[in-house]
């Protein structure tokens, strides 16, 4: 379905994010503070590619996804979609090409709407049908595509289970036939038994439709399974970005190492051989970030330089980018 003719700049990556910043003004008492939820983030997502984005909760993953889609106005930085800058202009037409699947399958579906109307809304908004019959056919096709029973089109969302609801959310995102979908922890609210089904469905849909994903999760195992490349985030910054296998097999940044060491591995030999790296201390408050490298307060390699300067992403070969002075 992904129509190659509409891609005007084939050599360009589909999505290019440059120095994206999102600061939230926060009031505490009479003081006005800025919360740097996303601070200078750059990455690209190629056509039909999946970029995984991992990090502890509260590190700004959701904010990256939403700012990228211009649901929040970026404080600074640029986002290019298919070679066109979308940060400044009215992008209602662009919305047809980039969509989002939300984390919470309960609050992301309007409880007063039927499945048919939820999935049909993008069709209505962009007038993608010529008559009622065509609308209905499209909706039923979408429901089939995500594995929903077409008989349930007139049901309300609250009658479905979490996994089914997430499928409704995916069908809604697919309705406009997008090139790019931000998946914001689409499986973390689901039962473990259902997670695998939904993740596999994302993969199948990608094979069928050629859609690119920004796949956000805090579970590295899920992300490794589906991603071509993975970016690791810590307190609003990307600290490491590399090919999926490379990052999982030989992480460089101390934070990525500790994240990976917490992932259970089914092979007992490997598990025994590996030492679990436990991070000391808590995540600092994003309102009161440490100077220099944000991770230095919990990093055992931290030096004086880390407190003074903020490390930037540097290439360690093969497009493996790491932001650390000491590793």
């Amino acid at each position: 379905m992904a129509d190659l003719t509409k891609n005007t700049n084939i050599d360009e990556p589909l999505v290019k994010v440059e120095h994206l910043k999102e600061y939230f003004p926060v009031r505490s008492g009479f003081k006005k503070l800025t919360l740097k939820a996303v601070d200078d983030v750059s990455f690209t997502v190629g056509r039909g590619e999946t970029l995984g984005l991992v990090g502890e909760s509260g590190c700004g993953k959701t904010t990256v996804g939403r700012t990228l889609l211009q649901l929040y106005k970026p404080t600074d930085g640029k986002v290019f979609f298919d070679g066109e800058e979308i940060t400044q202009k009215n992008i209602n037409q662009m919305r047809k090409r980039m969509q989002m699947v939300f984390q919470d399958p309960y609050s992301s579906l309007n409880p007063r709407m039927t499945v048919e109307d939820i999935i049909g809304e993008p069709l209505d908004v962009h007038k993608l049908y010529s008559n009622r019959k065509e609308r209905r056919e499209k909706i039923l096709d979408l429901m089939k595509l995500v594995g929903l029973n077409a008989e349930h089109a007139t049901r309300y969302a609250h009658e479905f289970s979490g996994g089914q609801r997430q499928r409704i959310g995916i069908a809604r995102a697919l309705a406009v036939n997008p090139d790019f979908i931000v998946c914001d922890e689409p499986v973390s609210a689901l039962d473990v038994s259902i997670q695998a089904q939904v993740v596999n469905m994302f993969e199948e849909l990608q094979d069928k439709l050629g859609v690119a994903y920004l796949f956000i999760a805090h579970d590295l195992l899920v992300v490794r399974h589906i991603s071509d490349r993975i970016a690791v985030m810590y307190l609003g910054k990307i600290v490491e970005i590399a090919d999926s296998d490379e990052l999982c097999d030989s992480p460089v940044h101390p934070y990525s190492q500790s994240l990976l060491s917490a992932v259970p591995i089914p092979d007992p030999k490997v598990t025994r051989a590996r030492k679990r790296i436990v991070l000391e201390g808590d995540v600092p408050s994003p309102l009161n970030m440490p100077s220099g490298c944000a991770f230095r307060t919990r990093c055992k390699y931290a030096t004086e330089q880390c407190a003074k300067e903020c490390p930037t992403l540097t290439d360690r070969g093969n497009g493996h980018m790491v932001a650390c002075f000491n590793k």
Partner: protein
Amino acid sequence: MNNYDINKTPKKQLLSMQIDLSKFEKATEEEKKQQDVMSESTTFFKDGMKNLFKNPLAVISIIVLLLIIGVIVVAPMIVPYSYEEMLSIDGKRDKGAKNLAPFEYSKAEQAYMEKGGERFPHIFGTDEQCRDYFIRVIYGTRVSLVVGLFASIIVLIIGMIYGSIAGYAGGRVDLFMMRIVDIIYSLPDMLVIILLSVVLTNVLSFESNSFLAKMGTNMVSLFIVFGMLYWVGMARLIRAQILSIKENEYILAAKSIGTKPGRIIRKHILPNCLSVIIISTALQIPSAIFTESYLSFIGLGVQAPMPSLGSLANSAREGLQSYPYKLVFPALMICLIVLSLNLIGDGLRDAFDPKLKR
């Protein structure tokens, strides 16, 4: 998975744990359907209505209200008297039919009936201007209900539009709009109503025979006043609702689709605060009726000869010692309407929004 051939599976050995497939029957289509774990399909509205009809007080109130509405619709067709004309027999004024007690006939009427004429009884008696009191109370009820309904609808429309814009826009727009609301809220409403009715009476003029002219400028100014003053409560309520509904991810989802703000408000936000809207409108009606009665009582409501429950009660005050029933009928009517509307409103609240229950 689904097509096991019974004949292909190895034969069951004695004492083996192998399942004997020949003992199993295939599930029929109907049985497969039963496996679909789905709750009964109910809409929010059906659900709420079902709850409402479980509430005895609300059901009784609905019946009472329906009865009253039935009577005020049907009675003017049956009762041969008009609310504004003095009683007359064969075109001659019946001067004796003054202040009759319920079901009493005047002397002229008795004479007329002895001659074989038919005369409809004066169920509530007559007033001191020889008018049938029953039909006046009926018309008074009509006026009061219409006023209550229209005033509430005006309040609802203005409050809904204003509240949704303020709530949806948020930020500075919200701040500014809500300060205006605060200012209006702080005005003493009775004073404003009285001042406005005095001013508007001089300003407004209608064609002498139109419906509005019959209602009287006071009545129209009452609508205006209601529209201008009482929407603020509704606006505040709806804004608060919208602020909380706006936080739901489905609003963000709608934005990410590219839905325009107007459609988001109409399709996503308002249906989700529908319960609050229904409830507060239902509770607004009796308060509007009450205000109308009060104003008519102090002489600022409908214009004579059009009766309203308040003005009827007011004129009954003069002869209170001799004809107490004249106060009882309109007062009882006000009580019945206000009470049943309040109980219905409460019932709606409990049925649609159990969270609001105190």
